[in-house]
C-alpha cells in the first residue's frame, strides 16, 4: 500500500499492514473525513489553516506524474489569475489577488496554465522536470516584438 499515490513529499501517512484488508474484505460504505477536527465551513478557512486529515488527497502528491513542469516568473506576471481559474489540479497558489507560485505536489504538468498566460513573454513556461528553477529563469525568452503589417 506504500505510495498509493504519493512520493514522500508531504508526509503521507503509511497505512500499516494491520490496517489493510483485501479488496473483497472491504466493508461496504466507507466514510473518509477530510479534516481531523470539525470545520464549520471550509469555504471561510484558507487552506493553510485547515486541519487536513491523512485521508485528504491534499496530503498526497502526484508529482511523479510529471515529465515537464511549469516554471513561474514573478517579474513578468500581471496577476490576471487566468492560470488560477483554469488549473485543473488546484495547483496555482493565489492569495489576496496575487499569484504566489505553483504547488508542485499537486501539479501534473498538463501545461494549461502556460497556454492561457496572456503576457509577452509568458510568465509561465514548461521546462523539463529535472531543470533547476534558477537555470530555467535565466533562459527566459525576450519580449517578442509585434510584427508590423
Amino acid at each position, binding site marked *: 500500500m506504500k505510495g*498509493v*499515490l*504519493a512520493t514522500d513529499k508531504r508526509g503521507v501517512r503509511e*497505512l500499516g499492514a494491520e490496517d489493510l484488508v483485501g479488496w473483497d474484505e*472491504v466493508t461496504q460504505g*466507507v466514510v*473518509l473525513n*477530510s*479534516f481531523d477536527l470539525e*470545520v*464549520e*465551513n*471550509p*469555504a*471561510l*478557512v*484558507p*487552506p493553510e489553516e*485547515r486541519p487536513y486529515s*491523512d*485521508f*485528504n*488527497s*491534499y496530503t*498526497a*502528491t*502526484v508529482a511523479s*506524474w510529471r515529465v515537464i513542469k511549469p516554471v513561474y516568473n514573478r517579474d513578468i506576471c500581471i*496577476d*490576471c*489569475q*487566468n492560470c*488560477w*481559474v*483554469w*488549473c*485543473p*489540479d*488546484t*495547483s496555482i497558489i*493565489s*492569495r*489576496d*489577488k496575487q499569484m504566489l507560485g505553483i*504547488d508542485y*505536489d*499537486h*501539479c*501534473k*504538468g*498538463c*501545461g*494549461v496554465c*502556460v*497556454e*492561457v498566460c496572456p503576457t509577452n513573454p509568458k510568465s509561465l513556461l514548461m521546462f523539463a522536470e529535472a531543470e533547476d528553477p534558477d537555470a530555467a529563469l535565466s533562459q527566459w525568452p525576450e519580449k517578442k516584438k509585434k510584427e508590423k503589417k
Partner: protein
Amino acid sequence: MAITSVKNLKEFSTANERFEGAHLLCPGCAHSMIVRELMNATDDNLVIATNTGCLEVSTAVYPYTSWDTSWIHIGFENAATAASGAEAMYKARKRKGTLKDPDAPVKFVAFGGDGSTYDIGFQWLSGAVERGHDFTYICLDNENYANTGGQRSSATPVGAHTSTAQAGRVSYGKKQKKKDMVAIMAAHGAPYVAQLAPNKWKSMAKGFQKALETEGPCFINTVSACTTEWKFDPKDTIHITDLATDSLMFPIYEIINGRELNILYRPKNVIPVEEYLAAQGRYKHLFKPENRHVIEQIQKDVDEFWEYLQRREEAKV
C-alpha cells in the same frame, strides 16, 4: 446566500478552494476546472452527490478524498436521487428542529457525466426534477463513457469515433445525432436550465450562482473536453473548448422556467466546425474524401440549431 464576487478574475481568485489536488483525473481534464469553479462560486456549505464516472473514481480513491465538503457516491445512476433524498431529509429535520445549525445555508448539488445523465441516470434525474427538489444537477458532458474506455453515449455527436462506434471502411463513426438534453430538461419545467462552457468562466460562474440561488431543480450541461478520448494534447483543453463555443458546436445559453431562452455568448467570429473537428483525433477519419459529406451535414445541423436558438430568443417563447 453568500456568493463569491465574480466581477473579475482577481476577486474570484480570493475564494478558498474546497476541491483538493492529487485527485487522479487525467492531466488537463476539464472536469476539475468545472468542479472547482462551482465550489469557488459560493461560500455556502455544499452537499454533493456524484454519479459513477471519471469524476467519482478519480476523486475518491481509497484511502483519499479530494472533497472538503459533504460528498456521497452511491451508484452509476442515482446522484440526482441521493441529492434529492439528502435535501428532503434536510428539510424534514429543519421542520422538526433537530438541525445543529438551522440557519447555515446549505446547497445540494449533483454531478454526473454524460453517460450517467443522458443514458443511465436519465430516469432518476427526470424523477428528481419532477418531484421539484431544491438542488442543482450538473452534467459534465465529455460525449462518451471516458471512464470505461470511450464507449459511445447518447451525447456522442455524429461522426465521432468511439470504441463502440468505430470509424473504418464501412462506418464513419457514430451515425446518430446527439440528444438535446437541455431542451428535455427545460421541458420538465425546471426553473433554470443552461448549457455552459469552462472557457467562458464568467458566464459559467454566474450560471452556477444563478442555479444555486434558484429554488427548485436546476440543470446545467457543461462542456468538458476530454484529452484522452477526444485525442488532443492536454495543454489544449481551453483552446479546444474555445473552438467548440466559437464554432457553435456548443452554444452557450440558458432557459428560464422552461420558456425564456437567453443566449449568453455570441462569438464575434464564428469559425467553421471543420476547425473544431480538425483539432481532435476522434474526427480524423471525417477528412477522408469519402466522409466529407458528414462534415457538411454537421455544419448544416449546427447552423440550423443556432438559427433556432436565435429565433427562440427573439420570440421569447
